[in-house]
C-alpha cells in the first residue's frame, strides 16, 4: 500500500521537476499524501497554472506565512488540494517560497486559484506580504485603523505572561 502511494507522490514531483527544472529548488515527501515543494518565488503563477491545469489541483486550502527571523526570510506556503482529479483528491501539496524579510513581494495567485482570495488578504495583514495583482488587497481581520507592524511577525512580543 505504502509503496503504491509513495510512487504517486514521486510522480507529482517528477512532473513538476520536468516542467520547471530551474524553478523547483527542493522537494520532500513528508509522508504518504503529503508533498512539500520549495520553489523560486518568481515562478509562482506558472507553477500554480500547471498545478491547476495539468495536475488537477483546483483549489488552495489555505495560504500561510511563516516568519524566519534567523534567516531573515518570510516563507509563504500554499496548501494546494484537488476536488476534480480523483487520483490526487487525498493529497495536500505544500508549495513554499522564501521572500526577503524586509521587502516581501510575490505575485498573487488569485487569477489562478480564486479560493486564495481571503487567504492572501489574511497573509498580507498578518505578515505584511504584498501580493502583486491581488484585486482587493485590504486588511481583513484586525482593527480598521490598525497601526504598527503586522502582528504575526516574531518581533511582536506579548507582555510577560502570568500578570494580572
Amino acid at each position, binding site marked *: 500500500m505504502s509503496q503504491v502511494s509513495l510512487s504517486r507522490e514521486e510522480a507529482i514531483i517528477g512532473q513538476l521537476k520536468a516542467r520547471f527544472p530551474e524553478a523547483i529548488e527542493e522537494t520532500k515527501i513528508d509522508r504518504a499524501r503529503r508533498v512539500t515543494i520549495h520553489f523560486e518565488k518568481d515562478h509562482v503563477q506558472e507553477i500554480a497554472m500547471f498545478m491547476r491545469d495539468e495536475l488537477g489541483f483546483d483549489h488552495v486550502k489555505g495560504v500561510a506565512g511563516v516568519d524566519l527571523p534567523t534567516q531573515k526570510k518570510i516563507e509563504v506556503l500554499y496548501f494546494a488540494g484537488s476536488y476534480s482529479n480523483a487520483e490526487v483528491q487525498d493529497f495536500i501539496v505544500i508549495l513554499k517560497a522564501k521572500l526577503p524579510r524586509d521587502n516581501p513581494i510575490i505575485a498573487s495567485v488569485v487569477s489562478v486559484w480564486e479560493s486564495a482570495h481571503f487567504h492572501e488578504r489574511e497573509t498580507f495583514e498578518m505578515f505584511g506580504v504584498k501580493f502583486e495583482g491581488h484585486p482587493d488587497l485590504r486588511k481583513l481581520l*484586525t*482593527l*480598521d485603523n490598525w497601526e504598527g507592524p503586522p*502582528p504575526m511577525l516574531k518581533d*511582536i512580543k*506579548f*507582555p510577560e*505572561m502570568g500578570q*494580572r
Partner: protein
Amino acid sequence: MSQDTLQDFAGVWIGKMSELVQTIIGSGPIKYIVNWSRMYALWPVHITTACCSAEFGAMMGPRLDPERFGMQAVAGGLRQCDLLIVEGTVTKKMAKRLKIVYEQMPKPRYVIAMGDCACSGGLFHDSYSIVNDVHKLFPIDVYVPGCPPRPEALLSAIVKLREKIRRQEVFA
C-alpha cells in the same frame, strides 16, 4: 420683577416639586412596585461579541426558558432593551460598537459580563487584539465566570441581578 428672577422662582418650585415626586416614588411601597416591574422586564440585547452566545442560546432555549423571569425572547431593537449581556471576548474592533450599543440603551440599564473573556480577558488575555478590562467601557453589574458558563450559571447571574434590582433605589 425681571424675567430672570421669575424664571428662577419657577425653577425653584419645579425643582422642589420634582424632588417631592422623587421622594414619594422612591420610598415606601411604590419603590417596591417599580423595582418589581423592572425585575420582570429584563429584555436582553443580542449582541454576540463571541462564542459564549452558544450558551446564551441554550439559556434562551426550551430547557431553562427564561420567560419565566420575564426575559422576553431576543429583541432586535436596542431602545426596548434593559439588559446587555457581554457574551464573551470583546476585541478592540468590537469594543467601539459595544460602547455605541450601550449608549443607545435607555436607562436604567444593566450589564452582565458573561464568560472569562468578558470578566478579565480569559484565555486570550495576552493577545494583541483583546480588550481585557471591559469594566472600563461601562459599569458591570454581575460577573459570571466560566468558559463558557453553563446556561444555569448565566441564569443564576440573572437571579443575582434581580436581587440587586430589588434592593436598588428608584432614582440612582
